């Protein structure tokens, strides 16, 4: 009986909440708000907030063309793998008070799943055989290498801080519990540099301006996505929207953990509101006021400035502050 219950529960978690359905819906909402707010910042009216959902449904109904040069299996498999890995990540991110799964190394699992979704985009783009995609995947990989170093350092700083005197913990539950007891990391002075660094990593991870060198519509026509059409493109677009929720949600869990109303319905609403605020703060605003960076500048920015901020936090935390 318990086994059946566990199975039903894990199916519900992975498909409905907080997995696929919730992530997709909230992600599309974030994408819509992002488009609306940026339009207002640029003195345009902008599309309705439902627009990304309509775009997605429209793409799902269109025919999917596999180019002659492409490898069919990889070309069509990549968007699905991308979507699945993103849906799985959300299972590990606490929605304020609620966590679907928690092990002892959630942070590393999340790190790897994010990498897998990036690899799916790269391999899919590469398999299309287009030279634009070739350039795009190379840029995507450099972007990945750029933010990976600060990202790892931030995760280590959080893990060390949350481990307290005992050591380190990579468990989301332990990180949330520690913050509930000792105050959120966003308001702990030694963690503030890491929080700022994380806010800068978010747009790079999602592929937002000024860090959208990989897609760069005006130069290389969306790079890896250039040959994609129909449902496959729709899944990648949905994946980008989901990534917005995942990254802002991860920030919430790592730096605003412990905030909880105690009621799951309110928690979900509050969680989405925090994610919206973060999206507007670190993606929309930055997007509206900056132009795209060059690849080598992006790399230098992340390995010096952002990694430096993360290192400051790491060293402070290591010294017990």
């Amino acid at each position, binding site marked *: 009986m318990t086994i059946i219950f566990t199975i039903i529960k*894990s*199916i519900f978690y*992975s*498909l409905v909440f907080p997995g*696929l359905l919730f992530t997709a819906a909230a992600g599309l909402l974030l994408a819509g708000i992002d488009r609306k707010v940026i339009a207002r910042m640029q003195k345009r009216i902008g599309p309705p907030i439902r627009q990304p959902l309509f775009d997605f449904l429209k793409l*799902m109904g*269109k*025919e*999917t*063309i*596999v*180019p*002659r*040069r492409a*490898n069919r299996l*990889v070309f*069509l498999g990549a968007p*699905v793998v991308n*979507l*699945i890995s993103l*849906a*799985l990540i959300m299972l590990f991110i606490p929605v304020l008070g609620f966590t679907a799964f928690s092990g*002892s*190394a959630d942070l*590393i699992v999340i*790190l*790897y799943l994010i*990498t*897998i979704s990036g*690899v799916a985009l790269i*391999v899919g783009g*590469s398999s*299309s*055989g287009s*030279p634009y995609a*070739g*350039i795009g*995947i*190379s840029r995507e*990989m*450099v972007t*990945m*290498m750029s933010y*990976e170093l600060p990202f*790892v350092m931030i995760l*280590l700083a959080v*893990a*060390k801080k949350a481990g307290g005197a005992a*050591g*380190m913990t990579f468990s989301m539950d332990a990180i949330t519990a520690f913050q509930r007891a000792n105050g959120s990391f966003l308001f702990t002075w030694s963690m503030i540099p890491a929080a700022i660094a994380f806010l800068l990593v978010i747009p790079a991870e999602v592929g937002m301006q000024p860090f959208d060198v990989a897609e760069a519509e005006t130069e290389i*026509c969306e790079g890896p996505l*250039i040959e994609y059409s*129909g449902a496959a493109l729709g899944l990648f677009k949905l994946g980008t929207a989901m990534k917005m929720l995942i990254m802002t949600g991860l920030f919430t869990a790592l730096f605003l953990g412990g905030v909880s109303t105690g009621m799951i319905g309110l928690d979900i609403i509050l969680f989405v509101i925090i994610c919206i605020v973060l999206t507007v703060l670190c993606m929309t605003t930055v997007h509206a006021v900056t132009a795209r960076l*060059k690849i*080598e500048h*992006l*790399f*230098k920015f992340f*390995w010096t400035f952002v990694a430096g901020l993360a290192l400051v936090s790491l060293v402070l935390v*290591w010294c017990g502050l």
Partner: protein
Amino acid sequence: MIQHFPVLAVMLLFLAAFQVEIFGSKNAQVRNSITFAATTISLLMILALIKPVMIDGQIISYWMGNWSPVGGYAIGIGYEVDALSLFFALLVSATFWLSAVYSFGYMEKDHHLGHYYTLFLMLSASVLGLTLTGDIFNMFVMIEVMTFASVALTAFRNNNEGALEAAFKYLVIGSMGSSFTLTGIALLYGKCHTLNMAQLSSILSGDLSGSTMMALGLIIAGFGIKSYIVPFHTPAADAYTAAPTSISMVFSGMVNKAGVYGMIRVAYIIFRAMDKSALQTILVLFGAVTMFVGVTMALTQHEFKRLLAFHSISQIGYVITAVSLGSALGLTGGLFHAMNHTLFKGLLFLTAGAVLTKTGTTNLDKLGGLSKKMPVTTVCFLVGAGAISGLPPFNGFASKWIMYQAMYTKAVESHNFLYAVVVITALVVSVMTLASFIKVTQAVFFGQLRPEYEDVTEVSMSMKIPMVTMAVLCVFCGVFYNLINRVFLYPASSAALNCVNYIDRMMGEGYAENAGVANIETAPVEFSYWNPIVWLVLFGIIFCAVAIVILKGFADRGPILESNSSTDAKYDTFFSGEQELFSQVGGSDLFWGFKKNWGGYYRIMGALHSGIVTDYTTMAVIGTAIIVLALFVFMR
């Protein structure tokens, strides 16, 4: 009966080596049968040892000519097989067996194959002997045979450019390694008057005098050269590139692991010095530098096999780092990664060999789009690339997982910031590994097919079987790692940490106790972190959901269209309205932003990898001096 198996397994291969030349130099059938029979029987003998050694926990010993110890001194040569030896011996036999099968198809167009199989069997016998022997001088002899067989095999295709040069570099640096080891062994012999490893271990027993430190430093440097840690890695890149692929696979899969085995055997059992934090730190630093230098050099390579060679160096860095942590967890992770590296790197070399046989080149700038022509090779390559980059559910992920766990546990326990840096390095190196394999994927298998490769076909069955076997094993070891841990890793790692039985079995009951040697009891390592079955189930659930939604909900409105007709413009690749030209984005064109930022670093690296043997020799001498000096300064 069973105690004869280790020595027979080695002897059989040595015997077959000469039979191949005598009977099979003209006839391919005879040659292949002898090689196949010898490697298979030797593999079966080693497999037969799993039950007594790994599961029942016995240690098998064998005195050559029945020269058992006289008056408490071991004078004869002894073979001694504990779980650690057997673990490596299994890897050796399995790798050589697969390589032999692959060779039959891969080498058939070469000449003088009698020589090839003679050297091949000599190499396999010597590496196997090295892992099974219980006598340190016998180990040195095996190293010598191994080095010279390797040198000859590196130069086997000596009509190819660079083969002789590579062999010469290997010869010079390899001989240095052998001489360092020999000097170390001579010092030990002068001090302890014995060459038996079990007896050495009980006599030395935590001795930190000057002569012991000197011997330890020299032997570690010697084995470091054999396992190609930085700064001794320089001949590896050339040798792996120049050697036939079946041999590159063995070099990278097993010959450098022999060095790792030697280091574990020497540092953990003979000197029992791995509990000293100074030695741990020195070796971990060498390991971390090795993994970083290896991967950054790999990122800039234009040659498939050379790139794989630098990755071998990098992955050995992981292994050395993990086993040098001195903990049961680190040893487990390191041994597991050594095993996984043998699998996935062997697999990657085999795919490189497949590409080389079919296209005649491994230059990343001259290939592209082979995935449609060689689908099996492509899938095998993607499995190998996923495994080496440590993506779940492949085996590389499981072992890297354990190693990260071991490293950060160490960082927490020792409260040393250095280990935190090592964790960061390991994670970043993992991403860089991924990057360089993305490069190979794009440059060889995806992208645009070159017109000259229109007629390329999939490789023959003899080459497919080892590739597919290894790809399946890569997934198997990643999913059922708990089984691997229970059967292989736990016995092997506890054998490295506990040497009382090892000594007693060889020298007689109670010998270790008299010498004051005690066991360190360890519990089996638990990997509660990662449960692949649950993962695959979750992955499957979502996959089915997505598939059903796409197929049922949208199929009638948006079918998947595909066509091979060359006239329909709908299936063309987008070219901004220009005429479609050949425009493959090759290997060297990727990652220029990264390379530009790292210009300074790459200039230094370029100067160090000058290709001049005297430079390499200097580097090796400096590296050895650093190890020995560091031991003298920090250990005493």
